[in-house]
């Protein structure tokens, strides 16, 4: 399905996650973050960059990964993306939500 994000038509799935990472840029990112009630700071960008890098390398994302990332600790991760931090941060980063098999 399509969704207007940052005045553009972007392809997303039922849950609002981007389907095509090529459509992601910082404008889209800011707009996605706003919808989640988050205003992007430098620390947010650090995390987004880390997540995208992991995703590109096809490494699974986890809280453990965050812990060992050297980018951020878990308490801060929770404070930057309150609620479900992995779920929200991946949505904003334009990458798929971490999943189980069904």
């Amino acid at each position, binding site marked *: 399905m399509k969704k207007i994000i940052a005045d553009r038509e972007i392809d997303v799935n039922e849950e609002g996650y981007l389907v095509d990472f090529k459509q992601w840029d910082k404008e889209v990112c800011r707009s996605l973050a706003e919808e989640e009630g988050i205003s992007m700071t430098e620390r947010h960008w650090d995390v987004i960059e880390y997540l995208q890098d992991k995703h590109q390398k096809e490494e699974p994302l*986890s809280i453990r990964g965050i812990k060992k990332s050297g980018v951020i600790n878990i308490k801060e991760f929770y404070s930057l993306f309150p609620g479900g931090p992995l779920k929200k941060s991946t949505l904003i980063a334009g990458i798929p939500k971490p999943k189980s098999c*069904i």
Partner: protein
Amino acid sequence: MKNVVILGAGTSGTMMANHLESTLPKKEWKITIVDQYKTHYYQPGFLFLPFDIYTTKQVKKKGAKFLPKGVNYIQEKIDLIIPEKNKVVLADNRELPYDILIVATGTKTVPEEIEGMMSPKWYKNVFDFYTYEGAKALRDKFRTWEGGKLVVHITEMPIKCPVAPLEFAFLADSYFKNKGMRDKVDITFVTPLDGAFTKPRATEALHYLLEEKNIKEVTDFNIERVDYENNKIIDYADTEVEYDLLVTVPTNMGDPLLERSGLGDDLNYIPTDKATLQSTDHENIFAIGDATNLPASKAGSVAHFEAEILTENILRYINGEELKEEFDGHANCFIETGGGKALLIDFNYTTEPVEGTFPFPGVGPLKLLKESRMNHMGKLAFRWIYWNMLLKGVPIPFVDAQMSEKGKQLEKVK
């Protein structure tokens, strides 16, 4: 004489020994397989053990029985892999040189990773069921348990057999119903993911199961510690879940051997090409099954499909040919839903589980993503298939290594 060395004689290693023994020319290749344990466990059976559905005898056999005679089997602990010298060092200091190495050391549970999980309460009111010992201890506990808050919990992903915890919750519902004490048991499913089901089609088709069985869900729960003195688990957002009986799936990690040898990632899994199964760092080291870091399910069926493709790629590697980028992440799993029914799912890296018929398009007899008795019979029959066909590398009839899209209702997928 050249050497192929297989590390681990579990599901993957045993299958590879059987495949290679029947494919590699015996005059040129010596096949050696190493495992520290004598016993081969039917791990899917650990799910049934706590509920007295399977006996201990049905889930363990002597591993050597499933290895072909032409293979050199060593029962010893592995100390180190030294890729630069193409050799493996065993705990008794024996050295095994290799031309090709296959890492099939699997994954194990590490409860020590979470503060308070491994405590004096371990196997008292905190259990795992991913080990033979845990499943058996839990069986004994259940036999006399008088009820209370049962919490089924996943520590972190990835885990072996991602649906097993959910199956456990379903089977617990049935078990306590049959004992006439379901009203005394409160079942809660706690997951770090955002739902018991996380794929849209499965959520749509299966969420009714949780409601029907009155299983509560706590989602997005990333555990920080177990407060074993006060019987609660606490996550990083300070959410607390109380339990009387905690059944957890601890952190899953690859074998410490990979960490010692400098070959593992954060979780001791070996970085592996997801289509060819060659390790990323060394061209003569291949990996299969739970030991890899592939974004596929850690499950025996996945290992089975990988084994066929890995065998072919090893032959290609020997002949100096380009490796086939053929593995598509194919998994095929029966999911117990309790009450003598089960679901069947068939999926790969890119296609989520959908409805349809399997293995014959339009005919079945098995139905995908729908509960049926036939699927449950399939799951029980699989134990026989495992011991008699799968381990020996006999192809499962009508099911290919690569996923088939036939008979599946794919059109709804966006």
